[in-house]
């Protein structure tokens, strides 16, 4: 019985998240469109509201082209690895008090592990397509993920020190109900580092080098089409969602808000997540793209020292406070 309930919960979560992905693309297109004084999708449905569904149907029925020279099994597996890893990391997110599928003690570590696993999908996609641009995109992605994984991990060490746990729900509880309890107040540098590394981790502008369409055509997804392309797309948006959720959980006080909403407790959580996702889109509409070596330089020369310094100062402050 418990398993059945869990399965239903999983099904609901997956359905909701997939719907979220569909409409996240819609909102991204609309918001970027209006920021660029155009309209975005307008034709399918009222103001293009059914556009994501149309896109989904289209990519589902599109021909799945496999390049002749590609490594078939890996080529087919790569998007699935990518999507599965991202989906799994959803399970530990606490949407509200007790609203987590698996409230495990190493939640934060689990998410990092999964997001690194997702980058395997990207690397394999780049390699298995057997195309020059995809390989370059895969290599870029690998280097980027490795260097920014360190930065993102180090930036959260301060949070772990303050809350004393890796369990996501307990991190939220440690911040408490008040505005000043949020770790963004006590850890601004860590949040800054986390935010930038988050952009890089999810391959968003200005760090979208693996799929820079003007240099590498589309990077690792150049050879993909149809549903497999859509899977990468979904993985990217779920990745954005997961990263934004970690940001909310670790820095913005999770599901706590100015007042509690009785029937639907995750409302604050979702609002905060969408605020961060709006930031993602907003930044995409504004900034140019970094170069590969500059990206590396920022990761290693700026973010990692900053987060190390932040850990040091946090530790010092905690020792002094005791």
């Amino acid at each position, binding site marked *: 019985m418990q398993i059945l309930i869990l399965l239903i919960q999983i099904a609901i979560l997956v359905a909701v998240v997939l719907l979220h992905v569909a409409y996240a693309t819609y909102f991204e297109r609309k918001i*970027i469109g209006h*920021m*660029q*004084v*155009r309209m975005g999708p307008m034709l399918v449905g009222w103001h293009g509201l059914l556009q994501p569904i149309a896109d989904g149907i289209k990519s589902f029925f599109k021909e799945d082209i496999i390049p002749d*020279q590609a*490594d078939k099994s890996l080529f087919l597996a790569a998007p699935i690895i990518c999507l599965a890893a991202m989906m799994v990391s959803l399970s530990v997110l606490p949407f509200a008090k007790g609203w987590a599928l698996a409230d495990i003690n190493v939640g934060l570590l689990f998410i990092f592990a999964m997001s690194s696993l997702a980058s395997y999908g990207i690397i394999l996609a780049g390699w298995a397509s*057997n195309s*020059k*641009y995809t390989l*370059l995109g895969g290599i870029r992605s690998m280097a980027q993920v490795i260097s920014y994984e360190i930065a993102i991990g180090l930036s959260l060490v301060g949070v772990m020190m303050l809350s004393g746990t890796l369990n996501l729900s307990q991190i939220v509880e440690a911040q408490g109900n008040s505005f000043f309890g949020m770790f963004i107040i006590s850890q601004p540098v860590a949040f800054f580092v986390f935010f930038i590394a988050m952009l890089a981790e999810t391959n968003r*502008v*200005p760090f*979208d*080098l693996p799929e*820079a*369409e*003007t*240099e590498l*055509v589309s990077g690792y997804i150049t050879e993909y089409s149809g549903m497999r392309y859509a899977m990468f797309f979904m993985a990217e948006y779920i990745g954005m969602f997961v990263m934004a959720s970690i940001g909310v959980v670790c820095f913005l006080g999770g599901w706590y808000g100015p007042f509690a909403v009785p029937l639907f407790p995750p409302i604050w959580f979702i609002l905060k997540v969408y605020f961060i996702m709006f930031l993602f889109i907003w930044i*995409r*509409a*504004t*900034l*140019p*793209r*970094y*170069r*590969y*070596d*500059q990206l590396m330089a920022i990761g290693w020369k700026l973010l990692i020292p900053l987060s190390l310094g932040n850990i040091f100062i946090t530790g010092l402050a905690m020792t002094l406070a005791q």
Partner: protein
Amino acid sequence: MSRKISFNCPVQAGDEDRYRIQMGPQHPATHGVLRVDLDLDGEIIRKCNPHVGYLHRGFEKLAEHRTYVQNLVLTDRLDYMAAMANNVGYCEAVEKLLAIEVPQRSRYLRTMVCEMARLASHLLWLATHALDIGAMTVFLYCFREREELLEIFAELCGSRLTNTYTRLGGVRQDVTHSIMMKLEKFVDSFPSNLEEYETLIDTNRIWLKRTIDVGTVGADEAVGLCLTGASLRGSGVDYDIRKHFPYAAYDFMDFEVPLGETGDTYARYRCRIEEMLQSNSILRQCIERMPPGPIIGDDAPDLIMPNKPGRKVEVDVPAQQSLIKLVEDRETFMEGDVYVATEVPKGELGFYFVSDGNGTPYRMHIRSPSFLHISALKTMAKGSMLADLIAIIGTLDVVLGECDR
């Protein structure tokens, strides 16, 4: 991965660890059908070999078989971003060869459309350059402005891109008040719109990092590479044909030539932005000083150009019978050769004509700036990174239609 893959770039001995990429001819950042063969060491370009010719339409050969007026439409298709400027360049050259007088009003009109074309072209350059570097929003903001200019073109001559506006001896249509009102509105609002783009990219740290010290050419090197236009002026060489060989009404215009210093991508970017402001002020002067008078000279040749009798003209069979009747004998053509250069948005567009007294040019050579700029790519891209190559192609502002002719 057991199957052997054959790439059509043979690998030389000692170069086995180089990564070879054929960038283009279908690539989003090569602005058309440029192909660049790259030897990469990691992401650093060791050898860069541009290939052109995918858009070669043989204009020089075609021009030898068509009359001077008919060749005018070919120039629309050279630099299709600024067809007006090409039309003016062609007409200035032919008028010098055939000694045709141009009335003052049409000189002003030519200056006006030239500068509008410059603005349209530079806006497109800024748009694509920014898009190449990743700033997508600038792209669409620039198109907003460019659209206004193209609408004015459409109202002025009935076509947005391939204008065929000038005529030997003048221009084709006069402006109206409504066109000038639109233009004035554009001129008034343009500097503030330009500031918007600058807010987005001009001091942006990412933009600076991507452009400063990228694709640097020194002044002497740039002259040696035959760069012209803003690509040359970014290196600090004061060479603008509008000042050196004034044509149309540039004599009467009051403008300055912006010069860079460093010769990198950022300097060229700044040069073009300043040029846009100068163009804007030229447009304002044109509006204010537009003289009255006829728009086409009295000795301008007719559309059906005179051919000397007895010369066979390649026309279709039914047309041939009546040809002799329509052909008038006119002794305006002289034998000789002339080279006239004009400053189009991309650089120096020159037409070299050899005339042997016929109604058609004996030889027409088009000195297109993009062609020379692409050959400079080889030198400029060496040692930079793959992403820089995109920025360099963008900053050279090449149009393949002009390059391949």
